[in-house]
């Protein structure tokens, strides 16, 4: 009798473990913050070539001859669901113009705030500082900052580069609804763009203690025929001494932007 009970318990425990393990592959339960929410505090970085072009692209030479192979385009596959961005025909023409003139037009080159979702898959780390009322996303590039308002949702008071973000939790997922953008930012270095009607809904879900799945649904009826979605993993920077280093790039671009206004040596 006792032995029977013991083996029954063993079997049921084993079954429980198997079920738990199965569930774990479907939905990882993230460690919790003090207020019981999934804890996304940390330094994160995408590992993708999408910052060159969110769509599939082959390797290509750098547009700046002097930079040779060091700044050549790394080939990469599309992070867009279904592969292609559903541009309206006239918008696709503008994207192609943007690409042709990217050295002049890409806001990244001028150290302008990168916008959303671009900030999340640039080749730099960013840090999440998480509180119950506000979740901060603090980016290396241009020192860009996003405040995600968790309990005081409101419409954007004015247009901005990084938009106005209202967030909420759906179980394991942080959902961030961002609008109030200007029309000045791009999605990548390939000229993919939007208008001020851009509306982005992002979903951050932990897939392990060291990686998040990042998804963003992008809507802009002025530019696209329908909403479209991207997804990339974000990886935790595990170095013990990882930190966001200063990248005050304004100084790096002043000669580029204002150099032609330098006083000419008097004759």
């Amino acid at each position: 009798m006792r032995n029977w009970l013991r083996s029954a318990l063993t079997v049921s425990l084993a079954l429980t473990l198997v079920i738990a393990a199965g569930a774990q592959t479907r939905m990882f339960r993230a460690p919790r913050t003090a207020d019981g929410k999934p804890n996304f505090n940390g330094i994160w970085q995408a590992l993708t070539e999408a910052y060159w072009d969110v769509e599939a692209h082959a390797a290509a030479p750098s547009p700046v001859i002097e930079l040779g192979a060091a700044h050549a385009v790394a080939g990469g596959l599309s992070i867009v669901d279904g592969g292609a961005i559903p541009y309206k025909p006239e918008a696709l023409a503008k994207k192609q113009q943007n690409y042709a003139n990217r050295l002049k037009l890409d806001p990244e080159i001028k150290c302008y705030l990168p916008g959303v979702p671009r900030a999340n898959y640039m080749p730099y780390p960013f840090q999440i500082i998480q509180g119950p009322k506000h979740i901060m996303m603090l980016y290396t590039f241009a020192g860009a900052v996003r405040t995600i308002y968790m309990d005081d949702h409101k419409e954007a008071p004015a247009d901005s580069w990084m938009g106005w973000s209202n967030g909420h939790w759906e179980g394991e997922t942080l959902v961030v609804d961002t609008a109030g953008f200007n029309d000045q930012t791009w999605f990548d270095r390939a000229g993919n763009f939007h208008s001020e009607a851009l509306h982005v809904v992002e979903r951050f879900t932990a897939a392990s203690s060291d990686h998040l799945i990042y998804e963003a649904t992008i809507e802009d009826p002025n530019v696209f025929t329908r909403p479209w979605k991207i997804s990339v993993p974000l990886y935790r920077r595990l170095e013990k001494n990882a930190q966001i280093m200063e990248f005050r790039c304004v100084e790096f671009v002043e000669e580029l932007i204002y150099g032609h206004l330098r006083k000419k040596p008097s004759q």
Partner: protein
Amino acid sequence: MKQRFLVPASIAVALAAGWSWGTPVAGQSRSAGAKTTGAPAKVYTAPRTPDGQPDLQGFWSNSTFTPLERPKDVTKEFYTREEALELVKRASAQEAEQTEPGTVPDVHYDFTQFGLDRSQSAMALSLRTSLIVDPPDGRLPPLSSEGQRRAAERAAARKSRGGPHDAVQNEPLGARCVLMDRNGPPMLGGAYNNTYQIMQAPGYVMILVEMLHDARIIPLDGRPQLPANVRQWTGSSRGRWDGQTLVIETTNLTDKFAFLGSSENMHLTERFTRVAEDTLRYRFTVDDPATWTRPWSAEVLWKTDPGPIFEHACHEGNYGLYNTLAGARAEEKRAAEEAAKKKSPK
């Protein structure tokens, strides 16, 4: 007709509520309590975060009209309540007047209309006659001999680079949106964008500086400062708790952002103490023997601010910088043309 608030709203409210200005905020200064009032200072204990740190979180304003150095004609450390009120009134009125419609400053910024003047921000009232609390005379210590030599070298180097509008690099860092005194460190208030947000997550304190959307992320885990060869505009900052007080030590600064003429080897210690529900005491000590003959300290009271902080895209919208440089070139062109006309009259 624009409405002009001649006293910062938070101070007006405090006044209406009968707040005694003669009582320095509890813990404001060890010497202050004894000198200004006989009232026993009630010691405030900040609430705790879930992981047990004193809770400094929220939005804060470091607006003040108190000058860094004590005016030459003032000999005391503290004003009376009446004197302080009068000074705030006068300074607020002056700041509002500087942007009278139709005047030159009005073309650049209408401070009052866009909420850029201090009379529209939260402001803690300090009775101090200077932000500098040490040396006791409230003034910067004398420059060391190395400090004098470097100041002369820097002035000569500036001169050799030409006029202030000859090239973008000759313009002040603030006009270039690179760094301002509100960013520091140390962080000092100015006429506008004096709002800060503090957040505390396990192992970190974040201070978001409204000016230039600048987030200071301070590790609290005892890690060493950055290697000595790694220099940053805002240096390398590490924090720790000393009882109720957050202490941030900063080194690894650059020669480019010289705070009041400091050297890149300046060692800065900032101390944040919540001394009341609505007041944070920010005290910093500058130790830089390569510039000053002795360390010196200053103190600013930060007042709770309703927030939020909106994006300050300074560089992206910097038409002023472009127009300053383009205007200087246009002036030169016009002057050259007029000179040529005078040389060869028809």
